[in-house]
């Protein structure tokens, strides 16, 4: 089990309690499921992107600066997931 921050739009691992709906959500994910979810970052990688409290407030309008950070977060999440998938064999759907 490891903590991650979510930078996608939605993810659900069926038959488990894991359902992630909010940008920036901190979630504990069992290791066997981490690589299946698009949009996860280790907390330290997420923090390095510099999201503010307003950025993470779902009720506040998003600035152009936030959108740049979101795109950077997506790129980082994709790279992280590819590293995990390259280390994982025989993954399930």
């Amino acid at each position, binding site marked *: 089990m490891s903590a991650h921050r979510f930078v996608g739009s939605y*993810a659900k*691992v*069926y038959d488990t309690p894991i359902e992630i709906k909010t940008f920036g959500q901190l979630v504990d994910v069992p290791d066997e499921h981490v690589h299946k979810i698009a949009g996860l970052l280790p907390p330290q990688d997420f923090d390095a992107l510099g999201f503010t409290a307003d950025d993470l407030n779902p009720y506040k309008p998003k600035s152009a600066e936030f959108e740049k950070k979101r795109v950077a977060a997506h790129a980082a999440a994709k790279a992280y997931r590819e590293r995990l998938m390259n280390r994982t064999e025989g993954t399930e*759907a």
Partner: protein
Amino acid sequence: MPTVNINSPRYTRLFAQLQTTGFNVVNNTTGTWTNTGAAMIRADEGAFTGSRSEPYTRLPYLTGTRSEQPGVRGRKSASLSIRGLAVIPSGTAGTAPDMDPILQNIFGAPSSGSGVNLYQFTDTGYLPLSLFSFQHGIPTLTAFYAWGAYVRSATFHFNQAFQSVDLAMDAGFFMDNQGFANADAIAKAGLTAFPAEPASPTVNGSPIAGFGTGYTATITTTATGFTGPQSLELKLRSFSVTIDTGFELVGGVYGSAYPIEVVGGTRRISCQFSCVDDDSAALNAIKAQCDQDNITMTVAIVAGTVAGSIMTMTLNNVQANAFNLADSGNMVDMSMGQSYAHATAIGSTNDATLQFS
């Protein structure tokens, strides 16, 4: 407790997977399905239909009575359709959507790009699909899998409740768990055991709303006196793009009752739309485009505004069909008939592209 389980579409879990070994081989290790890369497909109840064709051929030879004798089984094949499948980006720009196996099947290649997933046609890609239907948690109910499936037609709909696509597919055959033990090896497509339902499948991303502020529909016209990008998003009432892939299963051969491969015929991509009619410069340009002979235009439609959940379809070299006007309540609708896209040069395959960003 009931002594039998009544089947329900609500129990269904659908999966799509690209086959990596060949047209009539489901991915497996020594006969056991390997579900790596199988993606759960979020289809509505009633959306998925599949049918097999394996009719009996009559033997009406003369017997002295008016009754016939049993016939023999004829050719075998299958067709499937999924209506109104939500187009769901992954939510993370640069990560392919869950329906990536289906899109690779349509376009013939994986997506490309940095920070985006751009699907472009290739003529050399033949990527057969397997589709699996399980009744979740009740293995005694009937499950099945189809192999050698190719999308024959994909129609993307815009300005509906959510972005969706209708798919029509042909498949080599589909095998169910009840008859699996007695089926021949070709029907089983390389498997010696019926596939097991994947545990804990994951889905990523949310459906894109079918309309919204910031969505754009731009037609770049070339009609004399009416050149340039024309914005239609605040007039568009319906818009659809149809991709006829040209895939045709090859069957009817002496050595097999089943289709043996796929061949690619002409690919045709078309769009059609209707708008609220007005006298705007943009719509007048579209009408002039429809009226002028032997010119082409580019069509680009964007759905979604949040990074990771944006879908863009671009159609090149579209020859605009004639437009028509029709009363629609207190308004008049202008509609452009089905108009076909083309590659921009001989040797190109860029009739249309689909991008997620």
